[in-house]
């Protein structure tokens, strides 16, 4: 009877709605539809929020326990633990080694590996084998989305498991561009034989984020000496790899690459040429200062700025007249700013010249100099 009553109520409303004009019916349906969609959206949002909070609570609860176990098994030099003991201890304190728990353990492991150096990798590998971490990461590589595969590759690379090299190789020629880049970046860190082999034949452009990742891997490289990047400056046909190599020559202070960079200045690509001038400045190649001054008038603006910055960095005391002359000849505000900054920081006489310029300039040009002289502005 109750069901019939409810049916009756609905039917009454249905009958009422159908008695309305068509446009009103349409509006009612639209409003009801929006209401239902919004309710579903709110419910989904609440559920996602609930899952996230649950995950955070679990992480907060388990992370200190995992850290304690890692300290016990990795740093306790007096005791030796078997894989069975380690597995038992982990399962008794953390619970079942489910996917989510293993993900959390992997994160803590990576943090540990990045922060601490272990005398023996044996303990590290024993724990990985005991709790089946390698198999867990392998599963990510086998049947999952590209995102999970990339995550798996990153984890293998960060944990530097020796067998990882062979697992990553198939993905270095993947059809998915992002996955391929990730695999090649990780290969740099893991390969013991030829970590930079993909530099030779790579056609893909490395964006800035890829370059940051590559640098991160280079800084954590194990058992391999950082190579001399000048060979890629000389022979690579990929502009992004040349740009990265120039940056790396400066970062790792590879003085031996200076002759190659000087030769490279003949390139037609002015962006790369500007990068080369910048690298020469970072490397303190003061013996080429005169050559750079001679090249200055024929260069585009970005190269001119880098030449000025490099001369400023050489700080040889021989180029103050050149800088002052270029300041008065330049029409570009940005270039004037760079020259003024170089003059200000140029030896003791730079300050004097800067004061003379300040007194002689008016209006906007004077404002530029005041801006440069302001010590509170860090990035001018």
């Amino acid at each position, binding site marked *: 009877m109750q069901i019939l009553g409810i049916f009756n109520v609905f039917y009454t409303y249905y009958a009422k709605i159908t008695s309305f004009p068509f446009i009103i019916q349409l509006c009612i349906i639209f409003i009801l539809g929006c209401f239902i969609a919004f309710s579903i959206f709110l419910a989904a949002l609440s559920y996602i929020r609930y899952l996230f909070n649950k995950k955070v609570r679990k992480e907060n609860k388990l992370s200190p326990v995992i*850290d304690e176990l890692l*300290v016990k098994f990795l740093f*306790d030099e007096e005791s030796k633990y078997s894989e069975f003991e380690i597995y038992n201890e982990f399962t008794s304190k953390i619970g079942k080694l489910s996917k989510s728990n293993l993900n959390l353990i992997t994160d*803590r492991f990576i943090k540990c590996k*990045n922060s601490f150096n*272990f005398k023996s990798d044996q303990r590290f590998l024993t724990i990985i084998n005991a709790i089946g971490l390698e198999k867990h990461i392998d599963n990510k590589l086998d049947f999952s989305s590209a995102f999970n595969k990339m995550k798996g590759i990153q984890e293998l690379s960060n944990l530097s498991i020796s067998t990882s090299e062979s697992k990553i190789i198939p993905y270095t020629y993947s059809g998915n561009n992002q996955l391929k880049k990730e695999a090649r970046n990780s290969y740099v860190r893991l390969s013991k034989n030829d970590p930079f082999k993909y530099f030779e034949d790579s056609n893909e452009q490395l964006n800035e984020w890829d370059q940051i990742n590559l640098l991160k891997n280079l800084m954590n490289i194990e058992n391999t000496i950082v190579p001399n990047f000048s060979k890629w400056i000389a022979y690579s046909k990929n502009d992004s790899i040349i740009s990265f190599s120039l940056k790396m020559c400066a*970062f*790792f202070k590879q003085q031996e690459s200076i002759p190659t960079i000087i030769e490279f200045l003949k390139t037609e690509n002015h962006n790369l040429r500007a990068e080369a001038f910048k690298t020469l400045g970072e490397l303190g190649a003061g013996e080429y200062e005169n050559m750079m001054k001679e090249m200055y008038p024929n260069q585009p603006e970005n190269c001119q700025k880098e030449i000025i910055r490099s001369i400023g960095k050489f700080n040889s005391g021989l180029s103050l007249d050149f800088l002052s002359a270029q300041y008065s000849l330049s029409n570009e505000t940005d270039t004037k700013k760079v020259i003024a900054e170089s003059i200000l920081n140029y030896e003791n006489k730079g300050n004097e010249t800067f004061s003379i310029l300040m007194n002689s300039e008016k209006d906007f040009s004077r404002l530029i100099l005041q801006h440069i002289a302001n010590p509170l502005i860090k990035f001018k």
Partner: protein
Amino acid sequence: MNTALIIDSDLFFTNTVKLFFSQKNIDTIICHDGMHALDYLNNKEYDFIICSDQIEHKNGLEMATLVKGIAKSKNIPYISIIGNNNPTMKKEYEKIEPDAIFTKPVDIQLMLTTISNLQLNTSSFVRVL
């Protein structure tokens, strides 16, 4: 019992070192923020300082200068921890001459041995990179 003052924003690192030191009977005071470091340096009692370059509101070089400028802390073993393999940063740190420099990833056993040696002879400069 020795007491270590650890100045670092990296929660994982500080907590793990604290756990490790507690097993070796070393007390730990942790400061996560460069803004409060001066308070800690002046008002807490400690036997050696471990300071990383990853601190909020101050960089490691500023911290090293601060530690060496305070009468209470300048003769106490001071260990700098650099976050990466940046050669420029290493040179900058060497100018300030902390008692020892470690690069992450840190060999914690070696760090402990270095601290013991430094406590026996505080004048030596050790570079472990």
